[in-house]
């Protein structure tokens, strides 16, 4: 019973082969096996959003996905998005507006906000709040986070124009 299973996937573009127990969720695999600790674990049942990562380009809860379910998938973590420069402007906006304090929620917030900005070029504040509604922040009161996302949307729109 519960024999280890082999799994091959890409993490931030790098091929990974591993043998894992079926019960190991993707968040723990990323943090403990790959030592990519930017992905945070809060509730482990899908409600807080701290563990949000991208799988095949779409955001998911890594606490609700088994590592073995990521067989053949391309996983991107906050380290990947950060190192590639994809969200440099969003990160700068978070810093400028104090959209983070303890930082626990921040990787998940950035992942989710970037997902919105990829799909909608100029979201209004209610749309930003709705997209982030599954991500808890216990420090900032959200206002500054919405400000930072809105500001980033605006500068990106100006850059495109």
């Amino acid at each position, binding site marked *: 019973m*519960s024999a280890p299973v082999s799994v091959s996937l890409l993490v931030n573009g790098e091929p990974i082969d591993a043998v894992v127990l079926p019960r190991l969720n993707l968040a723990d695999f990323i943090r403990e096996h790959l030592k990519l600790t930017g992905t945070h674990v809060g509730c482990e*049942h899908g409600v807080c*959003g701290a563990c949000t990562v991208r799988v095949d380009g779409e*955001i998911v809860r890594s606490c609700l996905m088994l590592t073995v379910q990521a067989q053949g998938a391309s996983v991107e973590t906050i380290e990947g998005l950060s190192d590639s420069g994809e969200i440099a402007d969003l990160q700068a906006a978070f810093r400028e507006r104090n959209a983070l304090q303890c930082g626990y929620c921040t990787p998940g917030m950035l992942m989710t906000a970037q997902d919105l900005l990829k799909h909608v070029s100029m979201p209004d504040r209610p749309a930003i709040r*709705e997209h982030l509604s599954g991500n808890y922040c216990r420090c900032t009161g959200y206002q500054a986070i919405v400000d930072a996302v809105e500001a980033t949307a605006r500068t990106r729109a100006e850059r495109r124009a």
Partner: protein
Amino acid sequence: MKAVAFAYARATSVVNALELLAAHGDKAKVLSGGQSLMPAMNLRLLSPDILIDIGGLAELRGIAVRGDVLVVGALTRHVDLLGSPEIALHAPLLRDAVAHVAHPAIRNRGTIGGSLAHADPASELPACVLALDATIVVRGPAGERRIAATEFFKGIYETALSPDELLVAVEVPVAGQGTAFFFQEYARRHGDYAIVGLAACAVVAASSFSDLRLGFFAVGDRPVLAAAAGKLINASVTPALLAEATAALADELDPQEDQQATAAMRRHLAAALLRRCAAALLARPELEKGATR
């Protein structure tokens, strides 16, 4: 918390999944999107011996129109319902409802089959399939069974599925001429499970209902197709008649009390939704206010 250890089998086909289910019986659980199963396992409310992952089965995916039915594969994800032109055209109720289901990251993995099989009484999609008069298609060792949505939900997390069966598709009659839909729910925050909600499907002709199906959710141990709708069909809907219907609705619902609301509050909100629904579908805003006595 983390899930208790379990074995894992990746099904290679529906037939293979059924064989695995037959071999492991009720010690196995089917894994689709995992967005209800994994939380329950991480919280150790469930500890199956083996998970049978059907997530890779292309044969359970996709949305197709066959004659006058829309066939929605069990693995169709919430995000697919949101973006599908077929759904928007033939069953927009599902699109309107699924926008209220959880949050984007969860909608990227959660499936319609998983939502219906899970049968949370506060879930949106089960109430929609009642209102749409859909058929649930399941496969088991003895072959295929087709179950009317009205016969499918049996209680909290309980359905007509047996442990050796797989939900494979949902068949929805395509919306005909004059069909109109209404979806609204009360929730504390967008994406939360509803306090009370209503998914409705109507045929409106000459300013009255020639058909009306009201699927209420979070009002009892399963979604309810309200009989009170009968009072409004083929009748001139006056505020007094609507008051009669909301009174009948309050009698027929058996809501539970929990940390979100009392039973009385749920009855009150259900009545408010019924008035809003009638007002919206008949384009008579004054009906929302209710009868003045």
